[in-house]
């Protein structure tokens, strides 16, 4: 693997190896159906795949360096299930409103004081919450105190949007090991 040693030492290389394995898996997925006999795959083919996975890993760790912090699989699983369910509810909610004879919308903005610091995790939070029913992150603005708030556009301000967002964020912080210090 062409991985530059970076901050974090062995954890870094472990993260990089995990990513490399993931990329090689993706390559296998794309190339796999072409092989008539999986037991007799030419070594050259596999070498090309390994090379591609190494290049992808190199780009990946340079563009998005691994961040320290433990990932708790149980909480992450709960988070994924919740978002899967939420995206189903969100899609049905939009569909119901789109097909309703009279549009029942009360769009508006909601300023949500976010606890997650800026960076990849906040981007993840924004992306996940864009699938939640009735919310769409549109930007951020500085708060009066320290910290920052995300501005959400809501389809219907009558829904308890802020409660749902707080629940989602707590679950994400649990799942991604954000506050590793107080564990």
């Amino acid at each position, binding site marked *: 693997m062409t991985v530059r040693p970076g901050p974090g030492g062995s954890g870094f290389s472990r993260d990089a190896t995990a990513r490399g394995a993931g990329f090689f898996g993706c390559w296998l997925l*794309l190339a796999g*159906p072409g092989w008539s006999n999986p037991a007799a795959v030419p070594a050259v083919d596999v070498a090309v795949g390994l090379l591609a996975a190494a290049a992808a890993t190199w780009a990946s760790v340079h563009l998005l360096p691994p961040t320290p912090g433990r990932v708790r699989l149980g909480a992450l699983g709960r988070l994924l299930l919740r978002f899967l369910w939420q995206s189903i509810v969100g899609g049905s909610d939009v569909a119901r409103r789109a097909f309703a004879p009279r549009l029942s919308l009360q769009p508006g903005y909601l300023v949500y004081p976010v606890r997650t610091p800026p960076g990849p995790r906040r981007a993840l939070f924004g992306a996940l919450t864009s699938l939640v029913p009735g919310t769409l992150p549109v*930007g*951020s*603005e500085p708060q009066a105190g320290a910290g920052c708030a995300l501005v959400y556009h809501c389809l219907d301000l009558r829904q308890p949007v802020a409660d749902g967002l707080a629940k989602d964020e707590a679950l994400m912080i649990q799942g991604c090991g954000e506050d590793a210090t107080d564990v």
Partner: protein
Amino acid sequence: MSEFLLIAALCVLGTVALGLVVILRGPTEADRLSAAQLLGTGGVAALLLLGVATDTTGVADLALVLALLAAFAAVAFITPFGTNGGRADPVAQPDRPQDPE
């Protein structure tokens, strides 16, 4: 079964084509791009349906590429809006205040 999947693919394409009206109508660039994104997702669904209906495995690869290209097209289009205060904003008003970020 394959007839049903073909009809479903046609239905998806039909609804997506209806969305193309928004590309013409706008009124903002973001609306037009939304419709283009809908075309991307709908195109992926229609390709997957066609691939299974006609038993052609390569079509799934096409769908993968289309999903990738649709996302990159949108990101490439949006980047000028957010990162440099809208200087290259194709829909910027001349008197618009600069984005503080």
